[in-house]
């Protein structure tokens, strides 16, 4: 299904995103407030880019926000992205919004004001780094705040309470489930009740938000035991 997408900001993210969306057959309007940048991008995107500040209501209206299926705000300015999405969602009742969050510390502001999803490249890279460094312990593989569900990955510590126990004997809180065990020798598998969890295993766990601390206790080597 072809969508009508408004992209606020013709920086590297906005420009590349627009090109990909157009390639996939969607209708796109990019909004760019900087005149020189607009003229550069206009050479390629032609009528698919408009000159104007996307935080101004008339600019959004000129771009046809009333018929937009999706508004993506990817300027370099978090306040702008937040405001553009807030107005799109609450004033113009656009079905779907996606916001870019440049500074991951601002993610909580997006959350507080109901601007979801907010995507932070810095945060994503940070998570990848955490994935490469197991001593960080817990890696968020997937967060579904709307569905109130998370998937996390944990490495079982040498002296962790869970090490050496069977799945059935683990003291897992209600609302959590081990869905896979990844073992250096032998790859990943779905565990049974009598599977023994070994130190060094990676476990994938589905859980309700808020259970992380209780679960982590089972799988990390507690400081007191080091």
């Amino acid at each position, binding site marked *: 299904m072809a969508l009508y997408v408004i992209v606020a900001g013709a920086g590297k993210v906005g420009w590349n995103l627009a090109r990909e969306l157009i390639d996939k057959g969607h209708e796109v309007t990019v909004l760019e407030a900087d005149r020189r940048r607009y003229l550069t991008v206009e050479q390629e995107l032609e009528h698919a880019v408009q000159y104007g500040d996307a*935080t101004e209501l008339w600019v959004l209206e000129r771009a046809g926000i009333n018929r937009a299926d999706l508004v993506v705000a990817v300027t370099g*300015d978090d306040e702008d992205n937040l*405001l553009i999405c807030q107005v799109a969602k609450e004033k113009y009742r656009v079905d779907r919004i996606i916001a870019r969050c440049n500074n991951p*510390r601002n993610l909580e502001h997006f959350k507080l004001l109901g601007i979801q999803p907010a995507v932070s490249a810095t945060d994503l890279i940070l998570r990848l780094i955490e994935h490469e460094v197991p001593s960080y312990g817990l890696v968020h593989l997937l967060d579904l705040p709307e569905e109130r569900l998370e998937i996390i990955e944990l490495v079982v510590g040498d002296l962790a309470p869970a090490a050496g126990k069977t799945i059935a004997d683990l003291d897992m809180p209600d609302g959590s489930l081990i869905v896979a065990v990844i073992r250096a020798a032998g790859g990943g598998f779905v565990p049974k009740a009598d599977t023994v969890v070994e130190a060094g295993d990676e476990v994938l766990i589905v859980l309700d938000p808020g259970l992380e601390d209780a679960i982590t206790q089972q799988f990390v080597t507690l400081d007191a035991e080091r």
Partner: protein
Amino acid sequence: MFLLVVGAGRVGSALATRALRAGHTVSVLDEDPLSHERLDMELGEPWESVGGRFTIGTALEMDALREAGVEEADVFVASTNGDNTNLVIAQLAHRRFNVGKVVARILDPRRAAWYAEQGLETICPTAIAIDQLERSVLGDDGPAG
């Protein structure tokens, strides 16, 4: 009362100075150290010497807002030079920190009007200027017949 002014340009610094002179507790947050000099100048004596508070920091940083006293503030004024910043921090002050009275200076009349409809108190200097110009140029009765 405790007034927190975020953004001490011409408007913010003058308001903060008046409030301090009127005997209120006043804290100012601005990212530019120059705005501290502006406060000294407006007041005619060092800002801190009469109990004024000043914090250097970015309005969107929670730590800066807390350091400036947002959690104790009775009144929060968002008067940075950016409409978008003002709209965001005013909503944070209201929704996250439960400040009793929050006012945002918004230069764009249309957004000022829409956010006012959503329950945010906004002051739009542009709209005020337009009204005054209209009265001055066209008279109180509007355009001459």
